[in-house]
């Protein structure tokens, strides 16, 4: 199968039902997306599929044939971080960090679809991304900061 991950095209020989998360971590060595639950219940594995957030543990290899996947490592660069990443740094959101790549990918997807979400929409959008360190107030603050920096 073929797919593009973080701008690089890959040709892979994997089982069609292999979860995308396995493919990214075990086949491509991209360890940004994390395994938390495997059943769409934590958000730690969130990546973008054709620009929108999906749970990589739920999507199979055959469903991403020819698709463009973006992980946290392809969202921005240290020199040119995505506005959400920049806001995350400024708010110093991360505690242990395990959930954070999923949080950032979810937040970036939210702002792509809904550039000026209400507070209630932010809370609803981020509720599927759990944080065992309870960094939730800083997550909210960082998303509001990202919205402001984008001039929305």
């Amino acid at each position, binding site marked *: 199968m073929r797919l593009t991950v973080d701008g690089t095209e890959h040709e892979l020989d994997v089982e069609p039902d292999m979860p995308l998360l396995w493919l990214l971590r075990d086949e491509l060595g991209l360890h940004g997306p994390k395994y938390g639950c495997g059943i769409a219940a934590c958000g730690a594995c969130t990546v973008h599929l054709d620009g929108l957030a999906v*749970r990589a543990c*739920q999507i199979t290899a055959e469903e991403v044939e020819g698709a463009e996947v973006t992980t946290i490592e392809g969202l921005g660069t240290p020199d040119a971080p995505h506005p959400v990443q920049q806001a995350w740094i400024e708010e110093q959101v991360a505690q242990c960090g395990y959930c954070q790549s999923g949080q950032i990918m979810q937040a970036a997807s939210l702002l792509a679809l809904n550039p000026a979400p209400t507070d209630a929409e932010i809370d609803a959008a981020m509720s599927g991304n759990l944080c065992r360190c309870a960094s939730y107030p800083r997550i909210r603050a960082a998303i509001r900061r990202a919205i402001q920096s984008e001039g929305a």
Partner: protein
Amino acid sequence: MRSTLALLALTFALPAAAQGFDPIAEVLLHPRCANCHVGDDGIPLWSTDAGGTRPHGFHVQGGESRMGIETVPCSACHTERNGTLPGSAPGAEGWALPPVEMQWAARTPAQICEQLKDPERNGGRTIAEVADHVSHDPLVLWGWDPGPGREPAPGTPEETVAAILAWADAGAPCP
């Protein structure tokens, strides 16, 4: 003579149950159907082990788009097929809440019966088209193939289509 005719009419009217709305209501009000046919709060329902329902976890909201575009699109977790692990997300092509005018959850069979006949509230369909929708729409068909750990809707899609057509033939009476 008249009583023979009446008897004949009765005989041909069988199975009586299939002509009423009850067998259809049993399907439409089953959690596999009604849990997504929710009202204008746009909050899908989950069935609980105790036999009731609760709001979908993760504060999920279908929103006005009925597919979560304002917050988390359904497609963030629901793919075009069922997750294979118990408790994982079910999926089918076009996963979304039905339009709000098709609310069935928290409604009575009599209310749903009237809705099903009303093109304003059934997606602009004739009853034959409603039956066709039941036999072809991937999301409707999912109700009978809901993945591990979920009870399927009663009977089969074919039986439901037959029940809808028989009910229509009988003049689509409502309870």
